[in-house]
């Protein structure tokens, strides 16, 4: 099980996942070798699943981001078929499924509104088992704190 040292280590790591091991160990107030060993254990236990780069799509020319809230038809294969095909659209950067008023959400990025319209018509509306779609246009990211309140 996780102890206080593991939690402290993850807390410091999530604040700055790119810091060198020496800085991390110093922050968490443990020897570097201990930090390395514990990180390895957290990885092998699947608690630390991945460290992923954050890519700013706007800086790469994708000025439009739309959150599509989707209600699916009530059929046994609806989720599976929908998800399988949604994964093939490169401009879909996040896929989530929910328990609630909506069944799924796709984050879609596009270069501009014309590109978005094309994606929406040709790729999104043709996804299987969609009963209803609502679009929320991203205006600004107000705050983002990926970490957990450990």
């Amino acid at each position, binding site marked *: 099980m*996780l102890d206080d040292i593991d*939690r402290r280590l*993850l807390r410091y*790591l*999530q604040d*700055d*996942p*790119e810091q060198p091991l020496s800085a991390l160990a110093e922050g968490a107030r443990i020897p570097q070798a201990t930090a390395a060993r514990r990180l390895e254990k957290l990885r092998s*236990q*699947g*608690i*630390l*699943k*991945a*460290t*992923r*780069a*954050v*890519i*700013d*799509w706007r*800086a*790469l020319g*994708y000025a439009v981001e739309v*959150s599509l809230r989707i209600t699916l038809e009530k059929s046994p294969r609806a989720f599976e078929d929908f998800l399988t095909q949604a*994964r093939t659209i*490169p*401009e*879909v*950067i*996040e*896929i*989530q*499924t*929910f*328990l*609630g*008023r*909506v069944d799924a*959400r796709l984050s879609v*990025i596009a270069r501009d509104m014309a590109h978005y319209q094309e994606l929406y018509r040709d790729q999104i509306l043709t996804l299987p088992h969609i009963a209803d779609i*609502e*679009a*929320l*246009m*991203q*205006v*600004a*990211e*107000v*705050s*983002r*704190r*990926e*970490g*957990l*309140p*450990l």
Partner: protein
Amino acid sequence: MIDAIDIALLKVLHQDASQGTADLGRAVGMSQPATWRRLKKLRAAGILKGARLELDEKALGFGVTVFLGIKLATRGRVSLEDFERAISAIPEVQRVDHVLGLYDYRVRITARDIADFERILRRRIMTLPGVGDIESNVLLSEEVREGPLGNLA
């Protein structure tokens, strides 16, 4: 200004940003100094904005993630800045996006369980100034995709 090697580098970093420049360089067929220069360039261009951890939230005691759609009750007179500052300060709030459409804000919240979520919702979110309609959807699954990197090369 972005070439195929930059794209390859971004793809590798999207998979695993914890590796050092030597390993990254090997993955894209570049020397360590050349890789380091490219990373520096991608950061300076604002394309590479750090890294984030993907944790097993349940194993860490956070069993429930909820997305809220929030509509502000009184338009115009409510200070958006005050609302944004107040909601962003709640420790369980992981993400706040200002959106256009059915809701004004989309908020991601992590909680220990449904009871904990209810406490956060009632005591912290519903008491914020200007909050109107709130819709909650409990997250069942989530995938972060590589995105259109393949289209850029």
